[in-house]
């Protein structure tokens, strides 16, 4: 039967990453010579490099070689397809793909199926036919930041959004999650929602213009951390750092540094290293023949100065903290 097109945010057949081991036991023994191929969007963003580290770390742990490639730039859709096709031809046992868009790696699904290679869609853009997805709920990124505002700025006020590249799934979902949640509270007004194109300078300029028109703005939400750090500089240049809260998304190391320095208010960390580990584990379980739910949800957390220490330690410490979170039902 045809699979229904996947919506990773709402799919019912899902499991939280922390439950996997409990439900399916330890990772079974793998066939000899198992190797995994992975392709992600771009290495120009730390998020994707960290994801690769996660793959590598888990691969090393279980003795599976992982080849990790990425397109030359964000938006190089056909280049990414070429890479993925190369991986299929080269006979990897499982593919982990983080597509540029919802559609550009579609042909891979068929080619991999024909070659009997499972494919795991990792994070962000979602291939509708994907049989397996590992990642977080994009919309939830925005929701978490909106909830922070509702909780910490009870009087409400004006907020602004700086969006990623127009039309990109993650940007659309994050923006929508924030906008919807914060508007529903009734006290906040989204006075601007403008494109920052994942670009620091563009975001800086946009933030400058917004602040000038709305000097009483209380906060920004940016679709990624690079843009948020640009906004922080604009806020500082306008002398409003104590009045305007700035949130990013991704949890790159610079964002942590800025949070600790008291500049960036917060970010939604989606733990790319852990995501990578979980994704490869999921992929290998499939290779070993286990039947997993269609979606394995990975964690995310809103990081602020108060809790940054908890999530920025070594890998195992973070893992432990997140397992606690999961248990606590965050």
């Amino acid at each position, binding site marked *: 039967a045809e699979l229904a097109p996947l919506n990773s945010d709402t799919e019912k057949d899902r499991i939280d990453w922390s439950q996997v081991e409990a439900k399916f036991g330890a990772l079974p023994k793998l066939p000899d010579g198992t190797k995994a191929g992975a392709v992600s969007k771009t290495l120009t963003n730390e998020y994707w490099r960290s994801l690769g580290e996660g793959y590598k770390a888990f691969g090393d742990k279980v003795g599976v070689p992982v080849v990790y*490639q990425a397109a030359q730039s964000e938006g190089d859709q056909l280049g990414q397809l070429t890479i993925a096709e190369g991986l299929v031809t080269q006979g990897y046992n499982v593919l982990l793909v983080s597509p540029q*868009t919802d559609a550009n790696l579609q042909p891979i699904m068929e080619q991999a199926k024909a070659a009997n290679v499972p494919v795991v869609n990792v994070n962000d853009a979602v291939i*509708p036919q994907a049989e397996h997805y590992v990642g977080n709920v994009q919309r939830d990124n925005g929701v978490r930041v909106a909830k922070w505002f509702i909780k910490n700025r009870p009087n409400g006020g004006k907020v602004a959004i700086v969006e990623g590249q127009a*039309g990109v799934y993650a940007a659309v979902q994050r923006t929508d999650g924030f906008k919807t949640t914060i508007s529903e509270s009734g006290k906040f007004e989204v006075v601007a929602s403008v494109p920052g194109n994942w670009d620091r300078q563009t975001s800086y300029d946009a933030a400058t213009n917004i602040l000038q028109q709305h000097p009483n703005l209380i906060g920004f939400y940016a679709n990624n951390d690079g843009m948020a750090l640009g906004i922080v500089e604009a806020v500082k240049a306008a002398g409003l750092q104590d009045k305007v809260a700035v949130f990013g998304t991704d949890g790159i190391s610079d964002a942590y540094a800025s949070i600790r320095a008291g500049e960036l208010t917060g970010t939604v960390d989606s733990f790319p290293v852990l995501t990578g580990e979980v994704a490869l584990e999921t992929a290998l379980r499939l290779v070993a023949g286990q039947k997993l739910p269609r979606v394995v949800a990975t964690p995310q957390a809103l990081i602020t100065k108060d809790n940054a220490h908890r999530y920025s330690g070594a890998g195992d410490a973070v893992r432990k903290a997140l397992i606690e979170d999961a248990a606590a039902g965050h």
Partner: protein
Amino acid sequence: MSDTTLVQPRAEFLRGFSMRDAGTLIGLVVILAVFGALVPGFFAERNLINILQQSSINACLALGMTLVIISGGIDLSVGPTAALSAVISASMLVAGVPFPLAIAAGFAIGLACGLVNGVLVAYVGLQPFIVTLGTLSTYRALALIYTGGNPVLGLPASFRAIFNGSLFGLPLAVIIVAGVAVVAWVVLKKTPFGEYLLAVGGNEEAAYIAGVPIARTKIAAYMISGLLAALAAQILIGRLGAAEPILGNLWELDAIAAAAIGGASLMGGKGSVVGTILGAVILGAMRNGLTLMNVQSFYQLLATGLIILAAMLIDRVTRGRG
């Protein structure tokens, strides 16, 4: 320098295969040889077919680009034109419109986008680069607005089969583009329009006085470019099973690179269909080889840049100035 403006008389080995094309061919052979030596399985039949298939979309666009470049213009808007054409065809297909109609609508969009470019260049007299830079944003925006930024999913499998099939072991997309190349070659070499293109790009004023319909020639070039962008879009959505408004990002650069590697001069009046196809295959082989070698993406980017320069250099050396 005086001798850069003079062309060496060329001994044509075969009609339509010039010295210049031989230079490009040597470039391709060198690159194939290098990858063949470095990558086991590079010359496997399956991989060679992969290279052709992966080059086909760029080749399709680059053919249109070549005609535009020959006419003395440039078309930066091919990617967004393809995107607009793709989302409109796709949404018609999803709505159940018969294939021929939906495909025709996609082609019509391509032609219309080309028409707008052509009219602004030929009748209004604006610079091609800046016109198509403007329409690059405009068409992209229209595609995004039309779809609300969402991909159009769920194309009928039977539609996809059209572009995904194989014939004599070759993917249909490759065969279609090869057909387009043959037509483009005939058009350029054997029809008045081809002569007009070369004349308009070579010396617009002289062409005008000789009675060449300047405006119509230019507009036709842009419309063909738009049409081929639309064709590339159909091939792509057939392959992907979905149409996205952000499809075709940076396609123009690859297409221009293929045309230039193949010998087209951005000053107009010069360009080769055979060369462009070879140029597209050079770029495709390079991507494919680098991937198979598992080169990290930063180094792939480096290699891309260096290989474009190397291809031009090899060609330059084998051919002498010009």
